[in-house]
């Protein structure tokens, strides 16, 4: 009986370790996966929000990852370790799980909520916020700015 208990204990411990193993979700609107582990390295592929990528190794603040069979480096702040999911044991459970996921994915502070808030408060200047967020500094421009100021690329 004691042996069985230990088997359960270690089984659960292994599931915990698996839960901590590394699959990541992209948490920025678009993450850039690069050839080397530095900010302005050539782009290998871009991954949109919510996509899942596989970690191969970590070096400092960068992860070497695989996404759509392409390998490259992504910064730690653009990804989040994915919560581990055990395959559901019954159809009922699977349905319950997916409903929960749908609820979480589709709700919260979303464009739907923003639209309702915007209609309710016409004094809020979302038009200007859009202009501010549409203003972009190109990567080459930023690199040139850094060089011209004798600054160091981090």
């Amino acid at each position: 009986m004691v042996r069985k208990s230990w088997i359960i204990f270690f089984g659960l411990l292994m599931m915990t370790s698996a839960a901590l193993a590394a699959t990541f979700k992209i948490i920025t609107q678009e993450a850039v996966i690069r050839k080397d582990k530095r900010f302005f390295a050539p782009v290998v592929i871009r991954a949109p929000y919510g996509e899942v990528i596989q970690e191969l190794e970590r070096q400092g603040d960068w992860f070497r990852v695989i996404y759509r069979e392409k390998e490259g480096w992504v910064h730690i702040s653009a990804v989040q370790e994915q919560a581990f999911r055990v395959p559901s044991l019954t159809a009922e459970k699977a349905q319950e799980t997916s409903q929960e996921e749908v609820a979480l994915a589709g709700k919260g502070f979303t464009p739907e909520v923003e639209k309702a808030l915007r209609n309710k408060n016409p004094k809020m200047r979302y038009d200007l916020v859009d202009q501010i967020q549409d203003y972009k500094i190109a990567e080459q421009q930023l690199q040139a700015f850094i060089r011209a100021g004798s600054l160091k690329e981090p």
Partner: protein
Amino acid sequence: MRAMMNKRFFFWMFLVLGMLLLLAGCAEVVQVGTSVGEGMGRISKEDKERLDRMALKGEKAARPMTEQEEYFLGRAVAATILGQYRLYRNERPTRYINEVGQAVALASDRPFTYAGYHFAILDTDEVNALACPGGIIFVTRGMLKKAQNEEELAAILGHEVGHVSHRDGLEAIQRSRWLEVVTFLGSESVKKLSGAELAKLVLLFEGSVNDVVKALLVNGYSREQEAAADLSALTCMHRFGYDPRGLTDFLEKLAREQAGRTGQGIFATHPGMAERLTEAKSVIAGEKWPRLDHQARDRRFRQSLNF
């Protein structure tokens, strides 16, 4: 008696394992474990249900705001501020503060947010800088007038990037309000939002926005949050090749102005400039960071920001 003691032992064993699994955000794994335990008669049905409830509650209560939610919150905060202040529209200074700010952000602990960092100038003589959650950062014309070189500008923007990086804005949201959001979203009944449910969510969202705006414009952040943002600015500047004394030079000016006056803007929301100055100086002295030449950067500062 022995069977009962065994069940107690297993209850505690599952509780400890459950805590470990919750750290990994896995209430579902806890549920599988407790089902196995119950099936084998190791824990009672009541204990299984109790552990499952604890796991679900723990996971939901612990759920932080997602990056995407933070982005929408930050947009609403920025839209509210822009309802109160005029946006300064001039390409050259706007481009320049975005170049300095985005460069400094790369050296921060959080170089990437959901939609990146964006910097804009508020057309007011009030002296202030405001970081909205997610990365929209405002700096007033009055504040920019006080900066004398690019190092000082980098210090101002680096400090605000620090607030975004540490998610200080989110800390301003009343805990009870966020728990209500999480509980509401997690409830089984909310599959598709009805009109009333959407209205409730909008109200909660609005309350969260107001909490953050109030912290930015009225109450300010805690001294600990300000000190952490200063440290973050100093570190970014050093990593990036700016002279960190840009921060102490600027704080020195503000501390002088703050002495003996009650003011608006930054002087109201940022008490204790003198203490911040002392702390920042001691960090620089402790790290033995050398003084750096910044004449080339001073030139482009004068060409770009001319108020």
